[in-house]
Every structure is written in structure tokens, then in C-alpha cells.
């Protein structure tokens, strides 16, 4: 009973924090000059409810835009995961492949994924392919780096034990190397997914005709701050859901090893 009331108290205080921010926001909009530029929280909430059933732009509701962005992210991210995991593991396990691909990868690695946007547009036009490419680059780098680190840190003793017990190279690879890489791969995929989500926004903001990033830029072009805020909130919610989903997947798939935090 005491526990429950304590928890309720904590919850109330947490809500107090968020409530304070919203109230300050509302008061600032109402009583200062910021109100000329920023919408009030109520307007944003009202508009959000409105665009759930009405369209932003010509065709899609807010969910439609989110789905378009999500589709782009999923395709780019899936390709990036496959390529990143293969390259990361083979670079980590085979010295020769590392010697060949590492230097080229090290040149590509530090380039911020957003910086690829202009080049992608020149290469692929402003269609879907450019977006897939940008998202691919954003995810690929993170996933490869992490997988590579994981493949380097496979416990040689365990690997030796597997060989001693008569495992073939293939068996050792699938039973020892891959399972011990999986936590690292997941760490990379988590970071990768959130970078992909950021990259798709940037790509859509620079050039697109639909998608959640587009709702923000079109809001900017029309001077419609409420729409910008609706977009930001939708992005934040989806980003949060993605992070939660990845963490849950990790828990299910990597039961044998808990990664710190």
C-alpha cells in the first residue's frame, strides 16, 4: 500500500515536470511576443487530432506520411543491415578482407550521412532511389562499425574449444562467431535505426513531395507553425516507438547475454 502511494507520488511529480513545461509554453505564447511566431499547445493538439482524419497537403493524412517515411526507412535499413553485417563480420574475421576494405571504409565512415544528400540527388535524381541511398549510408556505417568490433572480440578460447571438440570451420562460424556478435550487431542496429530515421527526415526536408519530413518543410513554406509542430511530435513518437521496439527485440533475441544498459 505504501509502495503504491509512493509510486503515485513519483508519477505525479513526473507529470508536474512535463506539465510545467507545457504551462510555461502556453503562458509564453499568450503573454509575450513569442506568441506571434509559436502556436499554443492546445492548437497543436487540436490540429493533431484533425490531421488524423484529414489530409496534410493533397493526398495523405499524418499516418499516410508516416507510412511513406517508414517504408523508405525500412527498405534502406534492411539493405544496410544485410550489407553492414556481412561486411562487418567478414572484416572482423578475415585479415585479408580487412586489409582490402578497411581503408576505403575508413574514408567513408566519418562522413555525416546528411552530407550525402546533394551527391545522392545528383546521382539518383530526387526520386525514391536517392532516399534509399542516403538511408542506406546512414545505417550501413553504424552497423558495420559495431559488427566489426563484435567480430574482433570473439573469445578466442571459446573458438579454440569448439575446434578442439571437432567443430568444422563452418560450424564454429555459425555456432560461436555469429552468436557472440549478435549483441554488438543489435547495438549497431539500434544506433543505425535512429540515424536512419534522422536521415530520412533530412532527405525529405531537402527534396520530396510526401513523407513526414515534407510536412515540416511545407509547414515552413506556408508559414504554418502548427503543422511543423504536429510533424515534430509525430516524428518524436515514432522515434520513441522504434527505440522501444528494438530494445524489446534485443531482449527476445539475445537472451544469453545482457548488454549493459
Amino acid at each position, binding site marked *: 500500500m505504501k509502495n503504491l502511494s509512493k509510486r503515485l507520488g*513519483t508519477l505525479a*511529480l*513526473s*507529470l*508536474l*515536470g*512535463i506539465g*510545467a*513545461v507545457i504551462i510555461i509554453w502556453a503562458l509564453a505564447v499568450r503573454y509575450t511576443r513569442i506568441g506571434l*511566431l*509559436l502556436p499554443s499547445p492546445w492548437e497543436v493538439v487540436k490540429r493533431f487530432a484533425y490531421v488524423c482524419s484529414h489530409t496534410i497537403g493533397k493526398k495523405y493524412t499524418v499516418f499516410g506520411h508516416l507510412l511513406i517515411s517508414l517504408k523508405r526507412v525500412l527498405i534502406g535499413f534492411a539493405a544496410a543491415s544485410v550489407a553492414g553485417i556481412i561486411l562487418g563480420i567478414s572484416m572482423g574475421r578475415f*585479415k*585479408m578482407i*580487412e*586489409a*582490402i*576494405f*578497411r*581503408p*576505403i571504409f575508413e*574514408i*567513408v*565512415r*566519418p*562522413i*555525416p*550521412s*546528411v*552530407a*550525402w*544528400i*546533394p*551527391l545522392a*540527388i*545528383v*546521382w539518383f535524381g530526387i526520386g525514391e532511389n536517392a532516399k534509399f541511398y542516403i538511408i542506406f549510408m546512414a545505417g550501413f556505417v553504424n552497423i558495420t562499425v559495431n559488427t566489426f*568490433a563484435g567480430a574482433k572480440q570473439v573469445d578466442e578460447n571459446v573458438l579454440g574449444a569448439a575446434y578442439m571438440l571437432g567443430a568444422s570451420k563452418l560450424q564454429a562460424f555459425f555456432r560461436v562467431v555469429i552468436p557472440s556478435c549478435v549483441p554488438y550487431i543489435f547495438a549497431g542496429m539500434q544506433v543505425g535505426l*535512429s540515424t536512419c*530515421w*534522422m536521415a530520412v*527526415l*533530412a532527405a525529405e*526536408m*531537402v527534396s520530396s513531395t510526401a513523407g513526414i*519530413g515534407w510536412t*515540416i*518543410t511545407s*509547414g*515552413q513554406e506556408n*508559414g504554418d*507553425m502548427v503543422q*511543423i509542430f504536429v*510533424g*515534430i511530435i509525430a*516524428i*518524436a513518437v515514432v*522515434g*520513441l516507438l522504434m*527505440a522501444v521496439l528494438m530494445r524489446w527485440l534485443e531482449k527476445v533475441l539475445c537472451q544469453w547475454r545482457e548488454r549493459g*544498459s
Partner: protein
Amino acid sequence: MDEKLQNTARKRRLQYRLISLCSILVFIGIWYLATAVLQLAPSYSLPSPVKVFQTFITKLTKTAPEGATLGQHFLASLQVAFTGYVLGVVIGVPLGILMAWHKWVDIIVRPVFDFLKPIPPIALIPVMIVLLGITIKAKAVLIFFSTVIPCILNSYSGIKQTKSIHLWVAQTFGASRRQQLFTIAIPSAMPMIFAGLRVAMGSSWMALVAAELLASTKGLGYMISVGRALLRSDLIIVGILCLGLIGIVISFLFDLLEKLFVRGGKER
């Protein structure tokens, strides 16, 4: 016998290094062959490496076509990034520590940051433009946002991960709360805090490039966006490679700092 083993290991390493060198050369060679000799791609979409190099050299001194040399763009980007970043670190790290150390601050402030965390700073660019224009201030505030959140989160979890045994030992020896914080909690959180600084650097650099792509009159991001508008991919590639190079230099500097300030293990 041991020396012989070492010798072969050294030979191996040398061999791999040679292969690495060859692979870069082959890569550039293929690029050169495909563009300059065979002309598989039109030069506006993929220029030859020679052209890129030439552009790099001329951009060092010439201001055409977008009105600033490479050095000026570089300084403009760096100035903005540095202002926002330093502000973000100075506010974010202490706030994170405070949140972890005082329960009240934690309960009240934490949910606000849980709420702000998933918002990508890029999404805030239009808001910043409307509020502050396309000035340096707008970009600095944007960078501040993308810095402050990883800083807070990492120093928060760094302090939270302090081993309670260490704190108990300190308590047994009569350390005050303050002493516990400064001699135990903060040093043991240092690796986490540094990891946060690194993440913040990466995300703020990305936000800066995005901001410069969308609206600016100077900076490396602006340079590549002009390159796109004029279909000068040599300019874009020079810009991208410079951005990458700066990234390498910055992460090298971080390695140095980390060696100086962080004792014990490095947080991945």
C-alpha cells in the same frame, strides 16, 4: 624461436599494410578509369579523381562559384559548431550529474528529457529558422539542442552506475555527500561522460550540415548544396571529403583528451 615468430608477425603486418595501400590505389584507379578514360558516367555526375583534386586545390584560394574559399567555409562551420557545442556541454554535463545525484531534480526534470530525447534536432531546423532567422544564432541553438541531450543522458547514466560499494566505503570513512560526488561518482562516470561528448559531437556535426544544406550563406554544407544546384559534383565531393577529414581529426583529438582525463576503462 620467439624472435622468428615475431619476425613473421611483423612481415605479415607489413604485407597487410601493402594490401591496404594497393586497395586504395586500385579504388582510385578504377574511379579514374571509369571516369576519365572510359567515361562511363557524365562528368557532372561523377568527376574524375584528378578533377576533384584540382577543385580542391583551386578552392583553397579561389572564391568562385559560391563566394568563399574552402578555409572560410571551414571556419564558418567550425565557429558555429564550437559555440553551440561548448554551450551544450557546459550546461548538459552538470545538469545530468545534478539529475543523477539529487532525487528531486531527477523526478521532475527526467520526464521532460525523456520526452525531448526522440526528437531529431534536424526536425527543429524550421522552427529555429522561423524564430531566429538563418543567422549563426539559429544554428548555434540547434547545435546546442543536439549536444545537450546526449550530454545529459550520458552523464546521468554514468553517475547512476556508480558502484554503491564505493559510496559505502566513502561513507564509512566519513566523506561528506559533496566529497562522495567529486571524488567517487564523477571520476567513475568519466568514461560515460566522454562517450556522451563523442555522441554529441557526431550528432551536432550532422545537424550543422543539415542546417547549412537547408538555409545558410556560408559553411561546408552550403558549399555542397551550391555544388548540387550547379551540378558541380567535384565541389560536392571535395566538401564531403573535407567533412570526413574534419570528423577524423576531431575523433583523434577526443582520443587524446580521453587519454588525458579518463582513468580506467573506456566506455564503448
